[in-house]
């Protein structure tokens, strides 16, 4: 792909996590029986009037602030007219000429390099209903089923500048955006449930050319992987079209995940003509700057800020810090434990090790119970090997680590005065081996350690045993 430069822009729809819908008070939750959360307003029955959900405006503003956008104190709603089965009113209430937010950016890492993608605008709009196609894809379907529960849920549409230059970068951008939205709590960002969706525009131009090529829009990208794969496919397809001397056709294509290719979509009827005009049923939004400042003050530490802090203040590697940022539940736990004075590296190694596997199966432990485990390890009450057993027990019982160790009789014997008689017994029982050791057969050291461990049912602290053996055999 050296002969062409790839230019990618994304349009991301994020469903906002409100209790009720955007313009009516129907419940906005996912998973209810089809068409059970609908009312005259969201069904577009005649004579109804919409009323804007305050939380939707707050969340959209919060998203705009987190993406470093200008928040426009004046913004306006427009009516976008088109016929499609998922749109009960035959128009969508959206923001066209005067969006709520514009001119922001998102910073993220691509292969250890911090890059920035400009956000052109963010606007508020209503979600459409959900279509379930009878065939494997929309193009292969004789009919479709419609559920309007989703119709009217508040959405933000985030539009990037054509600033992205490779399919992998597009995926990394979207992953970082998803993380940002979940950090600020405005969406549950589940691609599989459709609360985060992405369309991609991609065009190729001769390397170095200032003129953009003809763009193709790709829809139906239901996962991060699908986004990357579809863009990779389109890069190759478009370069082959251009190589053959033909022109790329401006069109919408849909990603067929099963076949691993994009397919041209042609809607019945004309090219889109949305006849957009100001929404007569909704007055413009005039945001109070004080309210916007209150929202700004409610924004927590964002993923990149946290990454920088974990590296800078806590001395973690990029790999460790990224893990804790990508799994904020682990990140919070790390901060609690590290801030309580525990060693950062020890804590992060612990969290990323066996603990991660167990916590994903069974849910997290309280930080105090974890700290209790570190405490008895620090006291050398148990060995590292025994710590794994205690950790397992912590996940299945409400006991503290200390209680578990006591109940199981697991305390490590590290006290030299308790171990010395056992060491003596072992040496006295094996006089010939002691002779051989003294003549230089040092590998027998391990045998003596094993005998002491056996005599103590594994409770002896190996380090203490080593020290004692050294003392008894060498001196």
């Amino acid at each position, binding site marked *: 792909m050296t002969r062409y430069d790839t230019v990618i822009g994304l349009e991301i729809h994020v469903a906002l996590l*409100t*209790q*009720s819908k955007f313009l*009516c*008070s*129907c*419940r*906005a939750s996912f998973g209810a*029986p*089809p*068409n*059970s*959360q*609908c*009312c*005259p307003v969201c*069904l577009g*029955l005649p004579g109804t009037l919409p*009323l*804007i*959900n*305050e*939380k*939707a*405006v707050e969340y959209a503003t919060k998203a705009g602030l987190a993406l470093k956008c200008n928040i426009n104190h004046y913004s*306006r709603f427009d009516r976008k*007219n088109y*016929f*499609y*089965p998922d749109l009960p009113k035959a128009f969508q209430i959206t923001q066209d000429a005067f969006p709520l937010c514009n001119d922001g950016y998102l910073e993220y890492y691509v292969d250890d390099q911090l890059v920035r993608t400009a956000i052109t605008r963010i606007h508020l709009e209503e979600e459409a209903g959900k*279509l*379930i196609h009878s065939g494997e894809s*929309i*193009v*292969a*379907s*004789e*009919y*479709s*089923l*419609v*559920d*309007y529960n989703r119709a009217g849920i508040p959405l933000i549409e985030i539009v990037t500048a054509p600033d992205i230059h490779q399919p992998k970068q597009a995926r990394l951008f979207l992953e970082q955006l998803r993380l940002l939205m979940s950090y600020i709590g405005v969406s549950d960002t589940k691609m599989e449930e459709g609360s985060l969706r992405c369309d991609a525009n991609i065009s190729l131009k001769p390397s170095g050319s200032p003129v953009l090529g003809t763009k193709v829009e790709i829809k139906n990208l239901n996962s991060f992987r699908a986004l990357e794969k579809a863009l990779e496919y389109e890069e190759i397809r478009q370069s082959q079209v251009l190589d053959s001397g033909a022109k790329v056709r401006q069109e919408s294509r849909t990603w067929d995940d099963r076949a691993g290719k994009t*397919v*041209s*979509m*042609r*809607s*019945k*009827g*004309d090219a889109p*003509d949305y*006849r957009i005009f*100001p929404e*007569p049923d*909704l*007055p*413009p*939004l*005039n945001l109070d700057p004080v309210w916007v400042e209150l929202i700004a003050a409610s924004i927590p530490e964002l993923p990149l800020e946290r990454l920088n802090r974990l590296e800078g203040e806590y001395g973690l590697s990029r790999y460790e810090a990224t893990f804790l940022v990508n799994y904020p539940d682990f990140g919070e736990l790390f901060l609690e434990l590290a801030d309580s004075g525990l060693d950062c590296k020890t804590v992060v190694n612990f969290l990323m090790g066996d603990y991660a596997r167990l916590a994903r199966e069974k849910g997290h432990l309280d930080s105090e119970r974890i700290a209790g485990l570190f405490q008895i390890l620090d006291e050398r009450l148990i060995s590292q090997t025994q710590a794994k057993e205690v950790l397992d027990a912590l996940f299945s019982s409400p006991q503290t680590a200390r209680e578990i160790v006591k109940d199981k009789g697991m305390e490590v014997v590290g006290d030299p005065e308790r171990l010395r008689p056992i060491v003596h017994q072992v040496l006295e029982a094996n006089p010939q081996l002691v002779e051989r050791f003294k003549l230089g057969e040092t590998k027998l050291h391990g045998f003596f350690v094993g005998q002491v461990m056996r005599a103590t049912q594994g409770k002896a602290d190996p380090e203490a045993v080593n020290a004692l053996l050294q003392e008894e055999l060498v001196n």
Partner: protein
Amino acid sequence: MLRLIDRQEVIRMARLARLELSEAEVEQYQADLTNFLTSGKKLQKVDVSAVEGTSHAVSITHELRKDEVGSSLPREEVLSAGPETVDGFFKVPRIVEEQE
């Protein structure tokens, strides 16, 4: 009479609005819309350079609603609005045609 809007444009707009017009209606709308546009042309002559643009008939600002869940319609009532339903869904015919 000079027609400010041609037949094809009337037919295109009707199609966008999913209206089926008879020949006589196309003729009628072409005449009516020409009248509208003629009036519009007169208005365009007025000097409005000193007047601020407006998008709404009344100048009021927004009113927001608290994010509280209210009642929805019974499902049977919702579904009764569509010609065909399956398992609580509305059923609609083919949406997109395949083409390569």
